[in-house]
């Protein structure tokens, strides 16, 4: 019986409990208690204890696992205190004289006991934290949060560390209580103590923001932002600076928050930057603030919205798309604020100038500050010029609101001091720093060029700097200098196409020369190279505008040819190590092929790249084939390079050879192989490939393609991976269909006949021979167009070929499926022969004659009749002849043809019979087996063929 807490402790109430429960409580209980204490019945008992009542005594037993603990309180004491007092007189007090002390005896034991308090917080039952997430110090999240508002800074700091520690161990805790945590922690943003703020920053940075990244951030951020703004207006400059750092952190994890509070934020930045007395002293803090500003401003839309959303696979075509406000909205209102900020930034920059002159050296911190200031100005200027301001009342913010103070401020205070150069030349590192600053100023100038209308002098100054920058003159020649150059020059490149089209011819050639040098000199895999490539694409390929394509000026043309010539070399240089760069080059090549307009010298240059491109595919030196990077590039790059082939209007034989050897490489993916054939055929159709070249491309493929494994066996499911037999079959099929599209098949046949027969007489592998026979019959018609000579050649070749087929495809005994599979496999190789037999009776006659003579003469002239590759001894030859004839007779139509040649068949039979009788080394089993099949053959051969009405029983089922 479970009893709750008794509210009435009087014994009378207790006795009123039902009788049966009081009779023998221990019988019903799970375990008898070992010891019983007398208990005061008036005591209150906790919920969940089991209570027994026995003769006015109340016992409670708490079950903890298997142990039974007897729990008792307030043991009744029976007047103990009085008796003890009487005992006191047992000891007599000894009186001693003052000031005299007995020396301690020599054998005395030191009985002094020293003790220290041991605190065991976890032992108490009331504060059991088992199952709760605790930090290293055993504090729960709640306790830690409480401690964050402790008056002692050290405790606060420790609490923050504790939270970090706890969250690290129990990430789920943060997810559960994130709002509670953030509501408590945000109070610390404006904490007076620097250490606490720093700890909070670290906590936010490492745990809380990454931990809350995925869920609804809007609310989360708005909780923090109020306190950040509060801190930004704090009296203490340190707290204010720290608030900017916090804000920077928020922006990193939730970029849209800038657009929400943009105006307020910019105002705060403006306010803090106006206090110019402090930043010259504490540059470290200013630096981090400015970093934050750069990050915020870089969120401004400064490019034309040309970003393409990726096409999702599962999207519906006509799906409803809500008109969500784009990210740009809301920015137009801040133009005014931003202008004020730019003015403040310019003043900031100006304050630094005398500092630069006075300082012996440009130290890292001031450099970072200046750089951030310049970058902020640059971003703001870009936003003014290119940003989308549809919502602003002014049509074009530049003309109307681009007020003169700003423009003159920019041109005088910023551009006027250009170029910055070290006063006291001390280190190369300084050179690079000044170089970076100058590049950013140049960028600002080039953006503003159209609005400030610079004088020729100023313009020349900047152009000169650009030329020198591209040539790498202004940069130090050390390794770090080179790295700086590669990193910062790309930002200048986007201006070149426009500049080149606008400056005088003199400057044009200077700039192009410098650009070309940059393009050549930089590392092939660097981002600078990629930037150069995209600029080349812009300058080579007209963007939509059809008007000025023909009017390419001679100065640019020289450089354009250089660039085009450089492309294939670059592609080979890149190899397969930087597939993304290769992809870019290939894309540029493809675009060139597509858009290099007719009659311009560019198309001529493009045509010429194919010779250099050969090496990209494969080269043949001293009989060995060296594969180029093409083979090892990923598939999409391979596809792109194949597409480039289509646009060569005069496909060279050399390139086609290189591609053919790639096709024959066993490592090439079948997909790519088929794509190559498709594109090459499309190029032929478009008239880009010579007829002879195209034919030899196909024939080479068919005759040289290495099929493995060499022995044909019925394809099992598991073999598909190892064998490329299937690939070759589809290749044959594809080549056949391409050849049939090439024009009048009789003409194509005439051209191919000789070549194929020559190749066949070289006894290629079975698969290759089969493929070539298939091409022949596909182009041939009934009756055959084969010449007399070819028929003789074929009749000499076919017996060996057929016997090899029968030999290589071993017969299988067993279930029906295996047998029919075997017949199917054989049929693929036999079918072309059947077609030939069907079309020319003369061939059949000659064929049977050769078969017969090969049987009889085999012992005499093995060498001369060595038409087969595999079958050598006469015994197996005999066996195979029988099974071959059986296979031939299986086809109804061929059976009909064979019935016309009974005499020839008869003579073969006869020679087999005579051979068999003369054969001595045959086991009985072999003889029996042979006899069986021979008898079967006899029956089939002698029976008159079944006449089918269906005349088209032969069909190119495999093809």
């Amino acid at each position, binding site marked *: 019986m479970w009893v709750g807490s008794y509210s009435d402790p009087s014994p009378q109430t207790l006795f009123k409990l039902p009788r049966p429960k009081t009779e023998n409580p221990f019988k019903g209980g799970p375990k008898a208690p070992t010891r019983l204490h007398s208990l005061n019945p008036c005591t209150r008992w906790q919920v969940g204890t089991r209570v027994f009542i026995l003769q006015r005594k109340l016992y409670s037993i708490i079950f903890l696992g298997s142990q039974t603990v007897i729990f008792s309180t307030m043991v009744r004491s029976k007047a103990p205190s009085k008796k003890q007092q009487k005992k006191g007189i047992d000891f007599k007090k000894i009186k001693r004289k003052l000031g005299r002390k007995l020396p301690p005896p020599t054998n005395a034991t030191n009985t002094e006991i020293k003790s220290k308090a041991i605190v065991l917080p976890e032992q108490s039952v009331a504060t059991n934290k088992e199952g709760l997430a605790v930090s290293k110090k055993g504090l729960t999240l709640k306790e830690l949060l409480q401690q964050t508002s402790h008056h002692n800074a050290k405790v606060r700091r420790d609490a923050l560390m504790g939270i970090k520690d706890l969250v690290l161990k129990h990430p789920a805790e943060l997810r559960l209580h994130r709002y509670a945590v953030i509501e408590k922690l945000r109070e610390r943003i404006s904490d007076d103590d620097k250490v606490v703020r720093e700890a909070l920053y670290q906590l936010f940075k490492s745990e809380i923001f990454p931990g809350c990244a995925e869920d609804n951030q809007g609310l989360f951020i708005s909780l923090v932002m109020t306190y950040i703004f509060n801190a930004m207006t704090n009296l203490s400059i340190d707290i204010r600076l720290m608030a900017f750092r916090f804000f920077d952190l928020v922006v990193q994890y939730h970029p849209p928050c800038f657009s929400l509070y943009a105006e307020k934020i910019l105002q705060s930045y403006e306010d803090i930057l106006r206090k110019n007395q402090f930043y010259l002293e504490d540059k470290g803090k200013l630096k981090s603030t400015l970093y934050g500003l750069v990050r915020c401003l870089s969120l401004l839309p400064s490019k034309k919205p040309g970003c393409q959303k990726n096409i999702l696979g599962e999207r519906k075509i*006509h799906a409803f798309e809500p008109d969500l406000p784009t990210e740009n909205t809301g920015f137009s209102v801040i133009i005014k604020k931003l202008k004020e900020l730019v003015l403040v930034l310019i003043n900031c920059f100006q304050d630094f100038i005398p500092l630069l002159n006075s300082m012996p050296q440009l130290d890292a911190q001031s450099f970072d500050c200046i750089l951030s200031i310049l970058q902020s100005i640059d971003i703001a200027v870009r936003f003014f010029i290119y940003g989308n301001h549809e919502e602003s009342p002014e049509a074009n913010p530049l003309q109307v609101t681009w007020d003169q103070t700003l423009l003159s401020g920019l041109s005088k205070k910023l551009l006027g001091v250009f170029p910055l150069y070290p006063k006291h030349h001390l280190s190369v590192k300084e050179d690079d720093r000044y170089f970076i600053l100058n590049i950013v100023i140049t960028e600002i100038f080039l953006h503003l060029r159209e609005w400030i209308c610079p004088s020729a002098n100023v313009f020349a100054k900047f152009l000169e700097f650009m030329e020198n920058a591209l040539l790498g003159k202004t940069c130090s020649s050390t390794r770090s200098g080179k790295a700086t150059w590669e990193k910062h020059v790309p930002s200048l490149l986007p201006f070149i196409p426009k500049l080149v089209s606008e400056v005088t011819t003199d400057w044009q050639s200077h700039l192009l020369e410098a650009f070309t040098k940059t393009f050549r000199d930089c590392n092939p895999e660097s981002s600078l190279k990629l930037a150069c490539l995209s600029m080349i694409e812009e300058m080579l390929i007209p963007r939509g*505008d059809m008007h000025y394509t023909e009017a390419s000026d001679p100065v640019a043309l020289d450089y354009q040819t250089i660039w085009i010539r450089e492309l294939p070399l670059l592609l080979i240089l890149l190899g397969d190590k930087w597939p993304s760069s290769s992809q870019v080059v290939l894309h540029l090549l493809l675009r060139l092929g*597509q858009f*290099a307009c007719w009659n311009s010298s560019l198309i001529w240059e493009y045509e010429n790249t194919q010779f250099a491109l050969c090496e990209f595919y494969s080269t043949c030196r001293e009989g060995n084939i060296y594969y180029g990077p093409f083979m090892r590039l990923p598939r999409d790059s391979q596809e792109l390079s194949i597409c480039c082939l289509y646009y060569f209007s005069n496909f060279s034989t050399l390139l086609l050879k290189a591609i053919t050897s790639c096709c024959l490489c066993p490592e090439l993916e079948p997909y790519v192989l088929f794509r190559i054939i*498709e594109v090459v055929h499309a190029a032929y159709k478009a*008239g880009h490939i010579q007829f002879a070249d195209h034919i030899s491309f196909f024939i080479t493929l068919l005759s040289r393609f290495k099929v493995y494994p060499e022995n044909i066996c019925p394809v099992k499911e598991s073999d598909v991976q190892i064998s490329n037999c299937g690939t070759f079959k589809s290749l044959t099929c594809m080549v056949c269909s391409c050849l049939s599209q090439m024009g009048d098949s009789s003409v194509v046949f005439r051209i191919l006949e000789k070549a194929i027969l020559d190749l066949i007489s070289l006894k290629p592998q079975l698969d290759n021979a089969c493929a070539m026979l298939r091409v022949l019959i596909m182009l041939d018609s009934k009756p055959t167009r084969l010449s007399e000579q070819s028929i003789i050649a074929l009749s000499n070749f076919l017996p060996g070929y057929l016997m090899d087929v029968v030999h290589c495809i071993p017969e299988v005994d067993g279930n029906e499926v295996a047998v029919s599979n075997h017949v199917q496999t054989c049929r693929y190789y036999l079918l072309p022969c059947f077609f030939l037999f069907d079309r020319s009776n003369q061939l059949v006659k000659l064929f049977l004659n050769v078969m017969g003579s090969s049987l009889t003469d085999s012992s005499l002239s093995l060498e001369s009749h060595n038409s087969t590759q595999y079958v050598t001894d006469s015994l197996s030859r005999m066996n195979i002849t029988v099974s071959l004839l059986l296979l031939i007779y299986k086809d109804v139509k061929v059976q009909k043809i064979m019935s016309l040649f009974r005499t020839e068949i008869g003579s073969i039979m006869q020679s087999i019979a005579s051979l068999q009788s003369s054969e001595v080394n045959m086991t009985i089993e072999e003889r029996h087996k042979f006899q069986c099949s021979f008898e079967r053959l006899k029956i089939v051969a002698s029976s008159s063929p079944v006449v089918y009405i269906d005349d088209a029983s032969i069909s190119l089922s495999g093809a």
Partner: protein
Amino acid sequence: MDVVIASSSIDGGIGCWDLQTGAEQLRYKTCASPPHGLVSVGRRFLASSQLRDPSATSGHVLYWSWSKPQAEVKSFPAEPIKPLAADSEGSYIVGGGSSGDIYLWEVATGRLLKKWHAHYRAVTCLVFSEDNSLVISGSDDGCVRVWSLFLIFDDVRRQQASHLYEYSFTEHTLCVTDIIMGYGGGSAIIVSASEDRTCKVWSLSRGRLLRNIVFPSIIDAIALDPGEHVFYAGSRDGKIYIAALNAESSPSNSYGLHIIGSLSDHSKAVTCLAYSTERNLLLSGSEDGMVRVWDVKTQNIIRMFRHAKESNAQGFSR
């Protein structure tokens, strides 16, 4: 009467059959046209561009009236013309030249009204929009461009515009083989097929790529289902693939993403497709010279017309 007309690149004339009865009508003589080179102009007469020797400097376009087998009018444009298209009323004909120029003739007078440089390489296909205000052209350079005839005829705006076209889609890497345009005027979709084995679906209103479908083989012809649920893509491997537009497609199927199934009768490459909206029939022309009529519901061939030994027929119904 619904008729099917078909021409081929080998001189076999223009075959003409009644779609309902299957009876062959008049065969119009001497016609060897390139793909997309046959057009019925406002259902009043037929026009077909003719294949020329590569060396030829001028084009050749023939015109037949419905009642006579001989060509009645011949014209010789300045350069070889490949694709032809006519607006729905039959008042204009546009033709694409091998240099990339597009020519626009007025039917009533036979005058060349406009000629503009549209592509860097030969124009391969041309399509008018439903309301005849747009012309969409595909080219050998893989470019698909949308032209507004309002802009083409507006000399003032033409001077100001930086480019003539409305959109230029350059995502195809190889020659564009066919283009179709959906329904719905300005917010229609455009489907283009290319030798790069892909079909791409573009949005006319947004001017961007909506969907890219990779096929197992090159697609030479496409036809749109009237409900725009699917489109049919005739490929060089002889199959007609059914690709999903609005229809549901399971991601795991044998042909690839968005390809629902295929129609196949083991014929040679499919060279052209047309859809008869009234009868819900799909017509396919094949390299083997046959025009097949498919019932798309049952996926069976219900009729076959023999055009020639070899053909790249341009079948459509009237």
